[in-house]
């Protein structure tokens, strides 16, 4: 912007304030949403709510099978999407020559990331549930979530692997390491905190999905044991409680549990990746 009519000093101050204000607004929105959910939800939460079985379709009782369903689909989906996403990122940086193919793969990942989750859900129903005959199950839902998570993990990992300084790579080759030894022992450890960030982004997206899993996971309120059992993750439970008018307080309780789980995952991984990073860099 060009503020010719005011001095550079004043325009500097105005821009400072605008950016500061955007920061404050963002933070305020976060605080308001978190506070609202926790104020409405926390009163419902007690040991019985967390560890109890679902009763009366969720109007009473607890949400233990729901929490287990959520952790189940999230972990399983990340187990599937991580090797694929990280593998594709390694291929892009270390093996592929930059050209048409890499551009197509990168573009494909962008498109994959922008497909609405309900469309993924519908695909999951017709492909995994019906065509592959996996049924309404934790496994079908995990596959849908895994496909959704791949582009995130891939994109973040690629940036992170690409930013590993080439002097490390040269040092490794200079000592007679093979390509795979260099990738495995030098590149991946140096890129680890970035890769973990990608996995966490994929995880928090997976754990927050209702639309993508609603056609694939069934809607069972009993405890899922095998990966072929149906289940009902937290967001789906919350959606059903609210839309079917079963219990708004319990919907908020469920939302609060979901938010707390996401916060725990985020804080823990940030803590550990930072510690790892500091140890590597000798801080």
């Amino acid at each position, binding site marked *: 912007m060009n503020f010719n009519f005011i001095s550079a000093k004043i325009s500097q101050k105005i821009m400072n304030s605008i950016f500061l204000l955007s920061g404050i607004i963002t933070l305020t929105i976060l605080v308001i949403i978190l506070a609202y959910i926790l104020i409405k939800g926390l009163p419902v939460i007690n040991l019985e709510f967390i560890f109890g079985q679902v009763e009366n379709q969720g109007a009473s009782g607890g949400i233990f099978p729901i929490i287990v369903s959520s952790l189940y689909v999230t972990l399983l989906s990340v187990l599937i999407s991580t090797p694929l996403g990280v593998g594709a990122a390694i291929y892009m940086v270390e093996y592929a*020559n930059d050209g048409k193919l890499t551009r197509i793969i990168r573009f494909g990942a962008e498109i994959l990331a922008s497909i609405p989750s309900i469309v993924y859900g519908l695909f999951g129903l017709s492909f995994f549930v019906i065509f592959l005959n996996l049924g309404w199950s934790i496994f079908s839902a995990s596959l849908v979530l895994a496909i959704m998570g791949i582009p995130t993990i891939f994109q973040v990992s690629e940036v992170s692997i690409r930013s590993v*300084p080439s*002097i*490390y790579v*040269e*040092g*490794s*080759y*200079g*000592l*007679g*390491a*093979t390509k795979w*030894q260099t990738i495995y*022992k*030098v590149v991946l*450890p*140096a890129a680890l905190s970035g890769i973990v960030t990608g996995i966490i982004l994929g995880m928090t997206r997976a754990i927050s999905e209702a639309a993508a899993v609603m056609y694939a996971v069934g809607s069972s309120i009993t405890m899922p044991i095998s990966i072929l059992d149906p289940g009902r993750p937290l967001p789906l439970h919350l959606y059903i409680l609210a839309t079917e008018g079963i219990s708004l307080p319990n919907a908020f309780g469920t939302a609060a549990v979901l938010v707390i789980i996401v916060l725990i995952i985020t804080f823990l991984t940030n803590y550990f990746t930072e510690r790892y990073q500091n*140890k*590597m*860099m*000798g*801080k």
Partner: protein
Amino acid sequence: MEKITVEHLNTYFGDAHILKDINFKVAENTVTALIGPSGCGKSTFLRSINRMNDLIPAFKCDGTLLLDDEDVYAPEMDVVDLRRKVGMVFQKPNPFPKSIFENVAYGLRIHGEEDEDFIKQRVEESLKSAAIWDEVKDKLDKSAMGLSGGQQQRLCIARTIANNPEVILMDEPCSALDPISTLKIEDLIHELKKGYTIIIVTHNMQQASRVSDYTSFFLNGEIIESGRTEQIFVSPKEQKTEEYITGRFG
């Protein structure tokens, strides 16, 4: 006994002809300095010896480059083994973001060494040979990234020595270091000469004259003159060499 013999070596990056008809010999357990202005091809030449240029897809070369009597560019040459025998120290200290110990143990581990006692002993010997043992012996499990630049460079030399190489290539190893660290590395080169054949690229004329037995002067991808270091610096045969050494260009 010649350690390295180069005859009619030409190298190319794509269409660019970088090194032109290089003929060069290095005797065992000597230090050879490669001098010349930036972009003259001395680093490219250094990286031809351990085939680091292979990492650049457009690289091509012809001619002969012998290590002892083995052709470095022969199809049956094992590049992994070559780079173990011909170690390299880079311009910018590049320890891995790992502990000091693991940096030195890296070469042993990738070549399949599993005996932890042997690795321990070898790491200690290598750090001693690189004159850095006393400074790091109490913090071997700390990250190498916490060391000063000069210490990092000596650690990189230790890392190279741990592989028990025959030749050590140094690509301007002191250009990122302060004068005191530079002197330490130069002293180290004098020590290392007893057991290794060293080729060092340097921009620093004084350094070349201090550390090397032989010097080759590169210009525009050609070797203008090679000879004993005193001869090159005191009575160069070529006018170009004299002009460069006396600082008239470069």
